[in-house]
């Protein structure tokens, strides 16, 4: 089985980092994986996005064109990718930022004010982790232990304090699914 | 009978392809005398340019690399960086160093690469038959300035030593000439100083030698020497434009 994910938003929202965590989760879980960022001028203030594939078999094209999961953290990226999501797929948006409403009835659509939740909890900049947590709770793709191990791999030791903050945000996101 | 004059050990015993009266022979000899006297030949890596002196790789007895046109300073950088204890020098003409290779020349200066550049300025592209060089004098007739170099359209001659002296990484920038015995002696001293700088790891040393091209100038060898003296030196004043070692000495 292959899970194809697109994460998209503004540069600076931690899009590429979230993708990296998911890729490392795949590594920790012994899966095949790939992570492919958009690069270039897009990274500077425009939209940033990345493709993540997690699979039991070797991965063909690492560029995701029809995602199983879309996490959109701004309007332009939501509009860019919503029609590409596979029927039956999962769409998560940060509706603190995204005003658009879902126009499709063949996908699971979850809107949560992740940016507001993050700032209300004193965790500015953790909206990405909250959305990822919710996505993991919805799909069961990886458990929390795996996420923690992935974070320990991705975050350099001198910034280890961030692991705890990030994990708290992931758990908060996961818990938002009643 | 005692031998009072001989070929330097570092100068390979082969006939050169240089024209009669050409200055390259003199400067080759001076470089080799210095390599011999400082016992550097076994550790030296020379870089030959493109131009008349390309075949210097056959004449200098040390290991030699032939570089693409203008790139000798970059080639020397690569060789020196991975062999910091070897002695690396380039031997370049004016077209090679001051036209197509200007960027490489400036940047070895800014980086202070610990190498020696021997720069032969004879105001012309010799190998290709005497076209205008970046150092061709105003009004000078060449194959591509048949009515004399018009600075309005063909630009002005470039004074390399003055320019290189402005760069922080340059340890020595000195202009010398080979038109007379005292000047030739001065040239050898400058070359020696350049290699001493490299041994002492002081940075880039460039010695600009005002030299002759009787063939392309259309002059006899002795008249060519007069041209250096009367036409070139006034435009390209001889002298030391930068000498870090001397500055340090004076500061003591």
């Amino acid at each position, binding site marked *: 089985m292959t899970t194809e994910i697109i994460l998209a938003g503004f540069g600076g929202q931690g899009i590429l980092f979230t993708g990296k965590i998911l890729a490392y989760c795949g590594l920790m879980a012994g899966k095949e994986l790939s*992570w492919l960022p958009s690069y270039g001028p897009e990274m500077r203030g425009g939209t940033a996005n990345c493709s993540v594939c997690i699979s039991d078999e070797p991965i*063909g094209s690492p560029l995701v064109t029809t995602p199983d999961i879309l996490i959109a953290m701004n309007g332009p990226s939501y509009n860019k990718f919503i029609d590409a999501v596979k029927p039956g797929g999962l769409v998560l948006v940060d509706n603190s930022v995204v005003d658009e409403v879902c126009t499709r009835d063949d996908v699971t659509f979850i809107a949560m004010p992740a940016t507001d939740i993050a700032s209300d909890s004193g965790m500015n900049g953790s909206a990405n982790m909250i959305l990822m947590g919710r996505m993991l709770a919805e799909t069961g793709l990886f458990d929390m232990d795996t996420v923690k191990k992935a974070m320990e791999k991705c975050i350099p030791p001198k910034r280890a304090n961030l692991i705890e903050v990030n994990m708290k945000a992931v758990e908060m996101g996961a818990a938002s699914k009643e | 009978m005692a031998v009072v004059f001989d070929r330097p050990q570092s100068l390979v015993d082969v006939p050169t392809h240089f024209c009669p009266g050409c200055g390259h022979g003199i400067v080759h000899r001076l470089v080799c005398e210095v390599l011999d006297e400082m016992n550097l*030949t076994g550790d030296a890596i020379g870089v030959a340019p493109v131009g008349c002196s390309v075949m210097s790789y056959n004449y200098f007895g040390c*290991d030699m690399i032939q570089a693409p046109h203008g*790139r000798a300073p970059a080639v020397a950088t*690569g060789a020196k960086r*991975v062999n910091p204890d070897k002695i690396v020098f380039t031997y370049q003409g004016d077209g090679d160093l001051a036209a197509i290779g200007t960027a490489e020349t400036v*940047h070895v200066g800014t980086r202070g690469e610990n190498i020696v550049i021997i720069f032969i300025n004879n105001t012309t592209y010799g190998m290709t038959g005497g076209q205008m060089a970046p150092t061709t004098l105003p009004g000078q007739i060449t194959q591509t300035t048949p009515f004399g170099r018009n600075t309005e359209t063909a630009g002005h001659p470039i004074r390399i030593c003055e320019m290189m002296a402005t760069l922080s990484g340059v340890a020595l920038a000195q202009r010398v000439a080979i038109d007379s015995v005292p000047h030739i002696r001065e040239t050898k001293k400058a070359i020696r100083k350049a290699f001493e700088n490299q041994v002492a790891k002081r940075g880039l040393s460039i010695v600009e030698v005002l030299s002759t091209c009787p063939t392309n100038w259309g002059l006899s060898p002795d008249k060519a020497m007069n041209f250096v003296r009367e036409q070139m030196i006034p435009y390209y004043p001889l002298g030391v434009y930068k000498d870090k070692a001397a500055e340090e000495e004076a500061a003591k």
Partner: protein
Amino acid sequence: MKGNEALAEAAIRCGCKCFFGYPITPQTELSAYMAKRMEKAGGVFLQAESEVAAINMVLGAASTGVRAMTSSSSPGVSLKAEGISYMAGSDLPAVIINVQRGGPGLGSIQPAQSDYFQATKAVGHGDFHVMVYAPCSVQEMVDAVTLAFDKADEYRVPVMILADGLLGQMMEPVTFPEPKTELPDKSSWAACGHKNERPHNIVNSLFLDAPLLEAKVKERFERYKLIEENETDAELYMCDDAELVVTAYGAAARVAKSAVTKARAEGIKVGLFRPKTLWPFPVKELNEAAKNAKKILDVEMSMGQMIYDVKLAVECRIPVEFFGRTGGVIPTPAEVYDEIKKLTGGAQ
């Protein structure tokens, strides 16, 4: 690890002593990685003033017998062409990496495969070849670097790794070989100071005597013949009974593989031929892959460059169709799948 970083780490482990580069997207991570790691590994990192200078620094370092590397992306590789030709003419081993982007001109910074002609036919003036490896994953980038350094030394030729922005930017799991401790001895020809113990070595590409130059070139082509006989490599995927063979290399091959897998699941007799060396082109391997093929579909991220080698390899006995995207647009598996369907008429 990112593809670009993997290339750099692999080179260091191969005993690469120096890296000379100049910034250009999408390969900059390679330089940045080298800047961080090279000195600690006892080597030299230097950011040159231009691509032209960088390749000539490689020439200078390689002339002294050390393993040297440079990397760039398409426009920068054009600037390196002169130096590569001189290195080939001087029989100098070195590794050159091209993380291709869209062209011509400044083009785009997105992944492309439009430098195939340049790499395999004309990466500089004169009668010569460079070996060209075409990895298609981060792991293969590592393997290609290891091979490239060894083969460059073995045959005394420059070797190019032809990657693209997608492979350079993507991250995949990767395993590195143990660092190399023993490197080939090059003292018989290297210009590294003769210690007054041997005649001087000259690293040179100038031979004014025409018959002498001809002899030099012919000797080099004898080595090329050996390379062609021994060093071709390709992956054959589901080709045994394939009536349609898709040919693609690098990133395009990954896209094509997804499409082939999907078509196979539907009973379409299609396979994938993926050259891992572009020069020499794996002619024998392609003919093996296409032994039952009625058609070939060549897929590239260009307007069609490798297709000429494909046609030559099968001597035009089999019709060769083409599908490509260019300018930095990456073809999708769905597009390639549609082409496969069109050419096969669906499942038999």
